[in-house]
């Protein structure tokens, strides 16, 4: 009986004893909580090379630091890609690096576009950055040695702020939305599953933050699955969350995109835990104080000498929509290994390229930042695309590489036949699927049916043209080139 009672007491008491021991241990690992501490965290995301408002950001952060509160500045990724003047800097990304160092950034979670200039470049960027890179769902090994899954920042008063990072991956290929070649050798895991491993950071730290680049919808899922978090600072979906949302007790923030807003989070830590938290956005597109030194840096970066540098001297000035469209589509095929490419007339914004071609000329010719989209298409589907393009304006619209085509109509411009020929003049194999490249504009604004919805190659049409011209191609072929024809016939044979 005594034994039974002892066993029962043991069974009931053991969990309580264990709980007390673990509770003691977790308290023991946490330093004694200082008095009330106010912490302000500024945050940016998806800046995409839009640097002009950084002088205002610098002034806002400096003013807050002077007020005596603990101030941090986080970036949730995607600093590159979106401003050709900055993207074409040599070395790529240099303006962002120098500005973020000057602004005193405390932490960066890389976004999918941090990889756009390649791993080697990102590695050099990380080495010179005066802030750590944090992301838990990338296994990088030696490829990105400075990347950490999580970091602990400490305030002067001893508050421990644990932060882990997460990057989005695409459902199809399990990679972030960048060209697969740019992340070769890295291993990515599902971000929300990975996040569960960081629940343990709650014990031993006063504040727990997810600095993420997974989009607002997944930030909400993360908040629901992980109430241990105090705060999620997000990115990727370019969502303007103002004020920051309280979801399942977790504050979820995101500051739009393009440096139009600066996020500001305010935390009050009392008795070793966050007792008050709120966040909102500061609109930057208005008159406000600017840091003079940062303003000078921005002016210097905006006058990027690489932008005006001649990248190729052509034997002739390439002129006319046929020649320019042929050049642009040849570039897509050559750079991305496509069979066929199309370029719409409205996307050709110059009548001629000068003989001395600069990067600025390329972005004047093709200024829209459209991505190259690859679609697997049959000849019948290609005819559907050409038909829609012709019917839009009643004329030849799409310039082409890889094939030639003839649109035959009656006098009323009703299409009777579209004939496709391979480069050697032979008809296309009707049973074959071709790798076709079109711009994201054509992929979304033109109405044509296809089995494969396609996928973005995460690289712009202008970038393809720059790489093509830099490859030393013979530009004489663009002296007199025509690949798309319209034939009108009054007498069209009845079927």
């Amino acid at each position: 009986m005594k034994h039974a009672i002892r066993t029962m007491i043991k069974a009931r008491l053991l969990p309580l004893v264990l709980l007390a021991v673990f509770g003691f241990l977790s308290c023991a690992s946490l330093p004694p909580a200082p008095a009330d501490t106010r912490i302000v965290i500024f945050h940016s995301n998806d800046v995409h090379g839009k640097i002009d408002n950084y002088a205002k950001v610098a002034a806002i952060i400096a003013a807050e630091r002077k007020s005596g509160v603990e101030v941090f500045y986080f970036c949730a990724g995607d600093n590159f890609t979106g401003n050709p003047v900055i993207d074409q800097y040599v070395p790529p990304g240099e303006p962002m690096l120098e500005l973020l160092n000057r602004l005193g950034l405390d932490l960066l979670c890389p976004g999918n576009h941090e990889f756009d200039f390649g791993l080697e470049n990102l590695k050099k960027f990380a080495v010179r950055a005066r802030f750590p890179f944090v992301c838990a769902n990338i296994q990088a090994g030696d490829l990105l040695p400075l990347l950490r899954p999580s970091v602990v920042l400490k305030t002067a008063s001893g508050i421990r702020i644990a932060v882990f990072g997460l990057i989005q991956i695409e459902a199809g290929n399990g990679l972030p939305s960048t060209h697969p070649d740019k992340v070769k050798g890295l291993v990515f895991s599902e971000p929300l599953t990975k996040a569960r491993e960081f629940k343990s950071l709650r014990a031993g730290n006063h504040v727990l933050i997810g600095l993420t680049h997974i989009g607002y919808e997944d930030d909400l899922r993360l908040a629901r699955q992980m109430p241990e978090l105090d705060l999620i600072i997000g990115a990727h979906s370019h969502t303007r969350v103002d004020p920051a949302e309280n979801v399942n007790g977790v504050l979820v923030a995101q500051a739009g995109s393009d440096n139009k807003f600066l996020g500001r989070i305010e935390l009050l830590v009392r008795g070793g835990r966050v007792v008050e938290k709120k966040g909102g956005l500061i609109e930057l597109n208005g008159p406000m104080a600017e840091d003079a030194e940062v303003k000078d840096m921005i002016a210097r970066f905006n006058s990027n000498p690489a932008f005006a540098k001649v990248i190729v001297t052509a034997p002739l000035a390439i002129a006319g929509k046929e020649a320019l469209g042929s050049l642009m589509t040849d570039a897509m095929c050559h750079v991305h290994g496509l069979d066929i490419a199309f370029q719409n007339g409205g996307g050709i914004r110059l009548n001629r390229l000068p003989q001395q071609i600069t990067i600025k000329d390329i972005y004047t010719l093709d200024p829209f930042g459209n991505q190259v989209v690859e679609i697997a298409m049959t000849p019948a589907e290609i005819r559907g695309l050409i038909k829609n393009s012709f019917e839009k304006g009643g004329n030849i619209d799409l310039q082409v590489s890889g094939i030639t085509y003839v649109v035959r109509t009656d006098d009323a411009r009703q299409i009777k036949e579209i004939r496709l020929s391979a480069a050697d003049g032979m008809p296309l194999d009707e049973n074959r699927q071709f790798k076709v490249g079109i711009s994201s504009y054509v992929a979304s604004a033109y109405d044509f049916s296809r089995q494969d919805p396609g996928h973005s190659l995460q690289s712009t049409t202008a970038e393809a043209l720059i790489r093509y011209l830099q490859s030393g191609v013979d530009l004489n072929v663009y002296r007199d080139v025509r690949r798309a024809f319209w034939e009108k016939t009054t007498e069209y044979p009845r079927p």
Partner: protein
Amino acid sequence: MQIKMNDQPIEIFSGACVKDVLRKYSRAEWRLVKNDRKAVFDRHGHQVALDGELNGGEEIFTKSIELVKPQP
């Protein structure tokens, strides 16, 4: 991938952003947004930028700017 725009399913290439879905949804609606007469919002009511990146299954909506601006 499939995105819902104003409750209408839109099949679009993977890696598409908000402006791609909007253009495929309606050219008229695209023009209204480009001319700042309308803006695009997620299903939680937060404004999203035209370059905002999307994952399959997300829902977005267009709303008149007049309805969004706080009344004086």
